[in-house]
């Protein structure tokens, strides 16, 4: 069944089209809405076609880690809600949500878009911890890019809650934004036979040979990679996938 679907996808791709009529390098319509959850310090809802995710940022006070006493910290968590797909089950995070969270975390962390030193309040004692939770509402393919996009959009919209040095008042938000610069944009490229595709639909998301998730900086450099899928790829494939990701990242960046 999966094999038949894969063969159909490849035979269509050799004619330059996809199951839903899109071109191989074409995203579905992307919509980003920020400020969707009033209690969060920052939030964003991202739709890519019928895929829909919602991200929220909470800021907590932490004790800095001993090996980085002058820095705050970042945490990304992904919740694959059983609401969003018949394939997701209740329970502790499974390996798929852990991979999604870690890919998103690394994209943000390695872009150095958050100045973690500026998150420090008192070295060795107090610092801000930025917690980003991304929740899925509807999985119609390409959660990788939707989740990363929602996480960065929520981060960009976040403001500090009121803090007087002792008490944190989550009900009072300040107008001060997080110390951010140069956000990454994440694009995942999927390989079917000899063909490359972005933004897979639900069907395409089940049948790929390999995928490469690429986080791209504004200057075109890349700051994180993750290969997935059961098939190996050759070096030229990797660079074709990176090239496509860089081109598409410019398109996605316009929505931010």
């Amino acid at each position: 069944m999966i094999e038949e679907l894969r063969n159909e996808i490849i035979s269509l791709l050799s004619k330059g089209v996809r199951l839903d009529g899109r071109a191989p390098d074409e995203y579905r319509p992307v919509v980003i809405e920020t400020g969707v959850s009033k209690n969060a310090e920052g939030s964003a809802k991202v739709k890519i076609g019928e895929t829909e995710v919602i991200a929220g940022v909470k800021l907590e006070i932490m004790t800095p880690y001993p090996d980085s006493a002058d820095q705050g910290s970042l945490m990304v968590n992904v919740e694959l809600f059983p609401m969003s797909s018949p394939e997701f089950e209740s329970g502790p995070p499974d390996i798929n949500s852990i991979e999604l969270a870690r890919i998103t975390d690394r994209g943000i962390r390695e872009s150095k878009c958050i100045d973690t030193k500026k998150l420090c309040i008192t070295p060795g004692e107090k610092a801000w911890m930025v917690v980003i939770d991304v929740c899925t509402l509807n999985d119609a393919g390409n959660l990788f890019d939707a989740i990363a996009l929602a996480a960065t959009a929520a981060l960009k919209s976040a403001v500090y809650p009121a803090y007087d040095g002792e008490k944190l008042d989550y009900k009072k938000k300040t107008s001060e934004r997080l110390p951010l610069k140069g956000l990454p944009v994440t694009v995942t490229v999927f390989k079917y036979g000899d063909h490359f595709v972005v933004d897979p639909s639900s069907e395409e998301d089940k049948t790929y040979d390999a995928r490469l998730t690429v986080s791209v900086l504004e200057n075109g450099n890349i700051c994180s990679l993750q290969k997935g899928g059961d098939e190996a790829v050759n070096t030229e494939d990797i660079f074709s996938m990176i090239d496509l990701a860089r081109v598409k990242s410019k398109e996605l960046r316009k929505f931010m």
Partner: protein
Amino acid sequence: MAYETRFDGRRFDEIRPIQAKAGIIKRAVGSGWFKIGNTEAYAAVYGPREMFPKFKQNPETGVLRCNYNMMPFSSAGERVRPGPSRRSKEIGMVTERALRPVLDLSEFPNAVVDVYIELPQTDAGTRCAGICAASIALADAGIPMKDMVCAISAGKVEDKILVDLNYEEDSHEQGVDIPVAVLHNSKQIALLQMDGEISPEDLRRAIELAKNASDQIYEAQKAALKDKFLLKE
């Protein structure tokens, strides 16, 4: 002390603005969205499908299973740790009890109907908003139902009986919160909880307020379903 005007200026019998939609989660068999003031709930229905674990199967009838969850960033205070808590499990259970009286799952032996409720933003009244969204979602999914379930909290703040408490009222020192689920046609009550001190006379008045307000909820639920199913010109 006397509570003269409500924190947000509403009349004591006035609910917050409500909005409702049906069919917003495409992967689900049915779905609903319900917003009351700043409290917002999504509900999605999957099934009837085979019940796992198998020992929970009932050869006589299908089983309703509800799961209530607050998104980690949805609360007015600190981040809510992901995953089930005692509170969320209890709310899942009372949600099942609120919905079960209107459902007929006898055609689906050994099956489960799963309802997932998720809250992206909360300002009290979350279990009621979840039940309102779930009722829309079950109707949207085409599950046999003999009534709609309309849930709203009523209660007391200081000396006043009122409906649809917001967070400030709910967390008030002299606040009494009473979530009520009303079956629209029969006007029977399928959810009733309370914490705080109240006289039987005041409780009766609070339930009356909830019943009156439930009609507005029903209209919003019906409009949401009509909006999805009526053919548009």
